[in-house]
């Protein structure tokens, strides 16, 4: 550096440092952008297929270490369609020698410094972080193969959770426009092949066209016609309702499109679309302000990891805002929650119908448990806000588990609790397997010091929602 330059830098003081930073080399481009493939599909596929048993064994070992994955149904409690039992009990494993009450009595920094946060409370890794992408459960893969002859099976990974810990399939469908009919799904999974027959007479032409678009497959990062795919044959892609089965969820998962680099992208569990009519912000991180915005752009985000450059190569779908997007939104906006006969018009329990345990649970929910601060009963148990639970108070950030780097979650959208028993696993990444797990998680994170009776009452209450 010349002395003249040095003098001028000194004169500028800290402002000069800012300009030096701007002049620095950027970080490597694949921290943000998806690289181009470097191998022929046949070679990549052979390696992926050979790796698959080890990939699945590693994930299974991680899950077994974190959770009790046993089939332990709650006696007499089924999901809304009556096809699957709700699973009972806390499934997150405690660190050796610890109790839930003992942990709840510790300061967050103690739990962090002594590495005592139950691993099941940590962000949950995708089955293969380096590849990421949408992973469908077997029930969905088999149903779409049968109904459409379309292949949703990846050659590199399978879904990783036991069937007993995922939602009933296919989920029932409730319409705001026809409460008197109850479930209109006929026990079938909506697909491009059967939707017209099932819904004709129930919905308007505009809604029908929206539904058709929501069921039409479009190219996606792992399901497309290029060499950069994870499905054996060139694929026509995926449809919105491949994850949001019957407008609910099948526990298909993905990586968030909203974070880079790849190692830090957290897992996303598919959210139900029930009650969309009352939801004002969309996307766990994006806070898009309308379901129209979300429907229009989702095929660049979930479908292509938020990478419009990659989408351009594989065939993006750019729906027409005025016509197609509006119709997709109108269809989504008539999807109702499952009936909750014990709730009054304000979302509060009717004392004449509710059990003692449910009423006690509601009192805890509204009071000591602090649940209702965000999950407001009067507004479908949402608050249209994002909140930061600051879980990183309890663990050391930057730990790597199965190639996934756990950084703080930051603010995440409040999800509704209506119909919550239907949609395990819980939290935005599906890290909690049962409602009892969610109670222990929030009891620790919010420092509410609930006793066992209060915890049990909260579970009983949530089953009534």
């Amino acid at each position, binding site marked *: *550096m010349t002395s003249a330059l*040095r003098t001028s*830098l*000194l004169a500028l*003081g*800290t402002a*000069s*440092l800012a300009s*030096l*930073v701007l*002049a620095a*080399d950027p*970080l*490597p481009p*694949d*921290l943000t952008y998806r*690289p181009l*493939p*470097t*191998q*022929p*599909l046949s*070679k*990549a596929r*052979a*390696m*992926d*297929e*050979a*790796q*698959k048993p*080890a*990939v699945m064994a590693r994930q299974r*070992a*991680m899950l077994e270490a*974190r959770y009790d994955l046993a089939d332990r149904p709650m006696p007499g409690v089924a999901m809304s369609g009556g096809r699957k039992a709700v699973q009972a009990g806390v499934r997150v494993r405690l*660190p*050796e020698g610890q109790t839930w009450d003992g942990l709840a009595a510790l300061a967050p920094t103690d739990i962090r*410094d*002594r*590495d*005592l946060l139950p*691993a099941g409370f940590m962000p949950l890794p995708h089955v*293969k972080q*380096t*590849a990421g992408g949408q992973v469908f459960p077997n029930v969905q893969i088999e149903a779409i193969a049968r109904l459409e002859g379309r292949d949703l099976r990846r050659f590199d990974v399978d879904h990783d959770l036991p069937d007993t810990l995922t939602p009933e399939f296919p989920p029932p469908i409730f319409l705001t426009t026809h409460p008197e009919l109850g479930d209109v799904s006929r026990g079938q999974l909506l697909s491009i092949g059967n939707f017209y027959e099932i819904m004709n007479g129930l919905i308007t032409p505009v809604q029908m066209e929206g539904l058709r678009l929501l069921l039409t497959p479009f190219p996606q990062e792992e399901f497309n016609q290029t*060499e*950069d795919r994870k499905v054996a044959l060139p694929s026509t892609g995926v449809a919105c309702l491949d994850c949001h089965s019957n407008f609910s969820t099948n526990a298909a998962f993905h990586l968030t499109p909203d974070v880079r*680099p*790849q*190692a830090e992208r957290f897992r996303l569990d598919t959210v139900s679309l029930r009650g969309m009519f009352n939801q004002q912000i969309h996307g766990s991180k994006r806070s898009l302000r309308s379901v129209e915005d979300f429907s229009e752009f989702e095929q660049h985000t979930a479908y292509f990891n938020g990478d419009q450059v990659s989408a351009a190569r594989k065939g993006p779908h750019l729906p027409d805002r005025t016509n197609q997007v509006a119709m997709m939104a109108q269809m989504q906006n008539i999807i109702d929650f499952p009936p909750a006969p014990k709730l009054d018009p304000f979302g509060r329990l009717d004392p004449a119908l509710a059990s003692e345990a449910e009423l006690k649970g509601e009192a805890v929910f509204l009071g000591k448990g602090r649940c209702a601060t965000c999950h407001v009963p009067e507004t479908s148990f949402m608050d249209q806000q994002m909140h930061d639970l600051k879980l990183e108070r309890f663990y*050391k*950030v*930057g*730990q*790597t*588990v*199965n*190639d996934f*780097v756990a950084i703080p979650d930051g603010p995440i959208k409040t999800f509704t609790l209506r119909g919550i028993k239907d949609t395990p696993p819980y939290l935005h990444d599906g890290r909690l397997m049962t409602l009892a797990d969610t109670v222990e998680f929030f009891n620790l994170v919010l420092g509410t010091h609930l006793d066992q009776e209060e915890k049990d009452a909260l579970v009983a209450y949530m089953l009534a929602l």
Partner: protein
Amino acid sequence: MRSSPTCSRSEPHPARRLGLAGAAWLALVPLPAAAQMGNPGFMAPDTRSDAKGMPATDQTNPDDVLFVTLVGAGGLAEVELAALARDKAASAAVKAFAERMAREHGAANDKLAAAAKDAGLAVPDAPDAEHATLRDTLKGMDAAAFDLAYMRAQLVDHQKTAQLLAWEIDSGQNAGLQRFAAATLPAVLDHLAVARGIVEALSLADVAGEPPPQPRP
């Protein structure tokens, strides 16, 4: 790094039983048990793999090479700038931070050099142009102005290093380098957290005439 035993997070870490706390935890963050499996679609066509499709853990890819270059140069700069800060810093908190950077980045540089050598790569022997310019600029500054400029630069450097370490964990191929990245990332994020606190206090002192910050207990 390559010879150190690793464990998964699910297993009780030996250190947990020892009841270690405080700054010692940085050394105890559990490491991944093995190298990542990678996305074969993005691997070089000459990638060697075993019968189970696992890429050989001793080979490198271009991202490994770039990682060693960028993080190696950054690590050298950390130590060099820390030496400067130990001489010039006015605030006790900045001096303590610089001591820690010299100690921990010095140790990390040794580990990176060892992992790079095992991978057949060499770490840079001098900081890059960006850091050389920064060093020259800082040399001409004193007292509170130096403290603030050094710490603000540290903040950006640690942000960038954290991104590079996370990048190597998914994009690299060499197991030793990836273990180095995974082991180092929590410490770098802790440095960043401390640096953010110091910058906040220094900035406040700068604009409001507050007393300079003291070292964290």
